[in-house]
């Protein structure tokens, strides 16, 4: 399937990917209602949201290496939607922190934001991710121009690194999960360096044709 699928199929693939990526999020209220989240369901919710923020970022970062490996240039068309699922998770995760953890108490929030390094790191990642989400629209790409847009969106690397560091700093004693995430991220970043970029295809009609230069 190296040829771009017809528009309807492509759309279906894109929305299926988004739906699958968001399943863990949709499952949370179900699990909560079924009392399947354990004795501290709020902690479980927060951990699940954090985990899937990172995983959806990884999937987004995996689009380009997968594109280069398979030669399916059209995969790039999924990247924006997947990136926005990561943004969605990050927002809900931050909301859970503010609401479930601190019950929106300003003093408690300020305490965390000023004293806990991992919260500051997490907030930095969220701010950058928000910036990327806002500039993900076609209008923004046009306004910024391909080169500038690309430079800005390279921030996704920094965001992913901040996310892993956030998790690392958070963990109590068992570093196996953040260590595994760091390894996955390292592989994803390395693969971008090691896999050769394809020349821009004459066939690609994607609106992000400028951005696909390194896609």
């Amino acid at each position, binding site marked *: 399937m190296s040829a771009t699928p017809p528009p309807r199929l492509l759309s279906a693939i894109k929305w299926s990917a988004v739906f699958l990526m968001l399943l863990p999020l949709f499952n949370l209220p179900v699990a909560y209602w079924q009392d399947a989240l*354990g*004795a501290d369901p709020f902690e479980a919710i927060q951990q699940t949201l954090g985990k899937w923020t990172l995983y959806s970022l990884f999937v987004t970062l995996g689009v380009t290496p997968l594109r280069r490996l398979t030669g399916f240039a059209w995969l790039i068309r999924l990247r924006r939607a997947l990136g926005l699922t990561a943004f969605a998770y990050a927002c809900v995760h931050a909301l859970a922190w503010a609401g479930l953890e601190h*019950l929106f108490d300003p003093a*408690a929030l300020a305490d965390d934001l000023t004293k*806990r390094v*991992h919260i500051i790191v997490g907030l930095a990642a969220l701010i950058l991710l928000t910036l990327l989400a806002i500039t993900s629209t076609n209008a923004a790409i046009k306004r910024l121009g391909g080169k500038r847009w690309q430079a800005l969106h390279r921030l996704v690397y920094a965001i992913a690194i901040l996310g892993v560091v956030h998790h690392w700093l958070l963990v109590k*004693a*068992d570093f196996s999960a953040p260590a595994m995430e760091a390894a996955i991220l390292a592989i994803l970043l390395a693969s971008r360096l090691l896999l050769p970029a394809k020349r821009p295809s004459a066939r690609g009609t994607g609106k992000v044709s400028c951005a696909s230069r390194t896609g």
Partner: protein
Amino acid sequence: MLVRRPPDIAPSEITAASLFARRRQLILATGAAAGLALSPFSAKAAPPTLKISGRADHAGGEKPTARSAITEYNNFYEFSTDKRSPARLAQAMRIEPWTVTVEGEVLKPATFDIDQLRRLAPMEERIYRLRCVEAWSAVVPWAGFPLATLIDKVQPTGQARYVAFETLADKEDMPGLRSRVLDWPYLEALRLDEARHPLTLLAFGLYGDWLPKQNGAPLRLVVPWKYGFKSAKSLVRIRFLRDMPHSAWMKASPREYGFYANVNPSVDHPRWSQARERRLGEFLKRPTLPFNGYAEQVASLYAGMDLRLNF
């Protein structure tokens, strides 16, 4: 050809035909009744039923946390670092036979069989608050007797200033030991006066029955005014020492876990505030109480000490 004669079976031992016919239903019914392994003991070697001779509410009348929450949410890193797996994995732990060696700066060191310890003193039900360092909490109905009873029996010498507690570290049954997340075996300790305090409990039971394995069967320490990690589970050794030992958590993260670990809302953990806690089963958080609400009984132990330094 040797034909072995089967051992004689007394007629009284023959299963009634009606029971035999329903054997499958009976087995299923027994299984259902046993539920979530309410008894950690095999039918063969079960100790006598836990007898409770008295009840004391040390939780200000608060309702005990649901048993299912207490038995299905456990920090027992010897089995797993996640809180839900120990309920399942701890069933592999062999708790009979069980001995506890008491040694060190004592006049009468001894190795006690678990049955001897169970009979050392009448068991009292004590309803205590439990506050985990992670800022969640519960109200737990323990059953046991004061550790002081055991201490008096072994007679610490004048050199004994600290008491160390060691948890079982059985590589065969405890998959978590493979990870170096903590220095094994798990070690905790108290100052002698803390160990002697009437609130310090040697617990054998929970909710009127023997301790489930994931809660630290067959006996554990409970020190309600300190963070939960001080209340070591599944004790195999109690050692009286001259010098302050380093507990497992002190070694793992000295900046975060100190020797005293007294519940203190004004001393934050480096990574989170200790001012509030979430009671299991509730949504809204509640303020954490100094010494977990036991300040009246224990604050004098720390008179003159800087509790920020000695955290």
